[in-house]
């Protein structure tokens, strides 16, 4: 680093520090979620489809969306089921 770089770089945030901070967040997130949530989500989704299909005909795997979001210290499981129009009328 020379004297000119020293003057001009002062304003920029140190990129290694940014990298470390980002990595610590993503790595701790992936460690806590890798064994638990990631693996069971597809199974959970399939089981939900199976249950709903017992009561509504014409439901397929694209009608159910399961998402797990982590916000700070709590996780939110979001379930979105689009019922087929026919089934809705019958119910």
């Amino acid at each position, binding site marked *: 680093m020379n*004297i000119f770089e020293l003057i001009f*770089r002062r304003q920029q945030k*140190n990129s*290694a520090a940014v*990298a470390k901070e980002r990595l610590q967040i*993503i790595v701790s997130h*992936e460690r806590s979620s890798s*064994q638990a949530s990631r693996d069971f989500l597809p199974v959970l989704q399939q089981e939900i489809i199976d249950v709903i299909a017992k009561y509504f005909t014409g439901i397929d795997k694209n009608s159910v969306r399961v998402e797990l979001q982590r916000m700070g210290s709590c996780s939110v499981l979001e379930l979105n089921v689009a019922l087929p129009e026919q089934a809705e009328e019958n119910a």
Partner: protein
Amino acid sequence: MVAQIIVITSGKGGVGKTTSSASFATGLAMRGFKTVVIDFDVGLRNLDLVMGCERRVVYDLINVIHGEANLQQALIKDKRVDNLFILAASQTRDKDALTQEGVERVLQELQRDFDYIVCDSPAGIERGAIMALYFADTAVVVTNPEVSSVRDSDRILGLLSSKSKRAESKQEPIREYLLVTRYSPARVARGEMLSVNDVVDILHIPLLGVIPESQAVLNASNNGIPVSLEKESDAGQAYLDVVARFLGENRPHRFITENKKGIFGRLFGWTNREKLEDVV
């Protein structure tokens, strides 16, 4: 004594697994241990090139697994270092040709004759990588001080503790070591690169060594010579330190701080070294 199985792994490609496998195995053999290094990158073999024995490959790991050749026919004896053998990967097959039973049989047979078996893992977390780590006693996780490599290393650490034989059979877990490669102390000093302490903080495994970014690595692989045989070079010495530490010796870490420059160099950045690194 039953040979110890060491996997050199990383998740991410291009971080220096093959270079490290070649140099680490060569270093162990230089210390008098009978060592074999196996290329698990079926379909994309390169260990033979880095070791300089590409024209001597007749039979490979897959041939042995499928019973088309025996181990004695497939093992290539290194011409420079006694006690060093190479088992190449197949270039024409794919990773599905690696069966767990086949790999186990080959490793068991090698364990009778050798002190150390070094497994050069392919990149990724697919079959080839899992087969390379499955039977390991020790893992050396090769990591560049860069975000994607560190994240992938963490992923591999997860697999070592869940998908390996030791994990599945609830034995003592695989011993894990960190090897940081392509390290540039000058860039770390400028705050442009994660420091080795940052990487250790994130991955939380013991540090086996730091290999500096070095011209010697490319030179050595150009010539088909494991860089640990280039005893004058920084990277070569760093790999020999790694082997010594692995064998239980206490060696301080080198090549992790910037070379001191003169007062003019500090003021105006006039050093060849820094210019070189800027180009690289």
